[in-house]
């Protein structure tokens, strides 16, 4: 009888905790952060956004208070999506695995 493959729903989370993966992601994060700054909106009211982007360990973060508006837009702003576009601009493949 063939074995049944059961996918591990926590696989990605578990991989992220491996020291080797952390090292690779920590090396890539500054590259993505640079790309995010490159595609960040300029000439708008959100000109502080680019300066707020930083690589922290294996992640890229923004400390700008209105970063959700920059990323997803609003009634007065298009979705500039610098984080999502930045990942692709850095030469990576963007996959949205965030929880809805």
């Amino acid at each position, binding site marked *: 009888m063939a074995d049944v493959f059961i996918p591990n729903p926590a696989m990605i989370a578990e991989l992220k905790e491996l020291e080797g993966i952390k090292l690779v992601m920590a090396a890539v994060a500054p590259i993505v952060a640079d790309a995010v700054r490159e595609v960040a909106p300029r000439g708008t009211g959100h000109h502080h956004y680019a300066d707020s982007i930083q690589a922290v360990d294996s992640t890229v973060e923004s400390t700008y208070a209105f970063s*959700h*508006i920059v990323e*997803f*837009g*609003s*009634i*007065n*702003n*298009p*979705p500039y*999506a610098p984080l*999502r*576009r930045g990942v*692709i601009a850095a030469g990576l493949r*963007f*996959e*949205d695995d*965030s929880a*809805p």
Partner: protein
Amino acid sequence: MDLEAITCSWLQSVSALGQVGTRTPADTDSAPWTCITLLNDIPKASSSALWAVDAYLQLDLYAAGDNNQAQARDLADAVRARLAAMPGLHAGIVVSAVTDMRIRRLPDTELVPARERYILTATVTAHPAA
């Protein structure tokens, strides 16, 4: 190929989905509305150059002025169902798949009170018909 426009036309063909466009409509209060933005248009690595592309779209689905959350959610579900039926021929363009359709709630805080909004992201894969 302008997949933003093609998607817009596909959704506009269903009147029950209300206003659908690529910018904020003049009247944002009388009915729910949808705004489509093309975030990326990436040639598929597995296809010939300038042939198949993956268009990554964000659709903002807003409630009307009475700010009914269920209304915005129903709109999101209806739009997602319509997108799922999109594969086929569209004005010389073959849409081969619509994938990774995710819905998340993110009220728009630039309106007071914050207006109920769901964000639907989707990848539309397409290539020329000939």
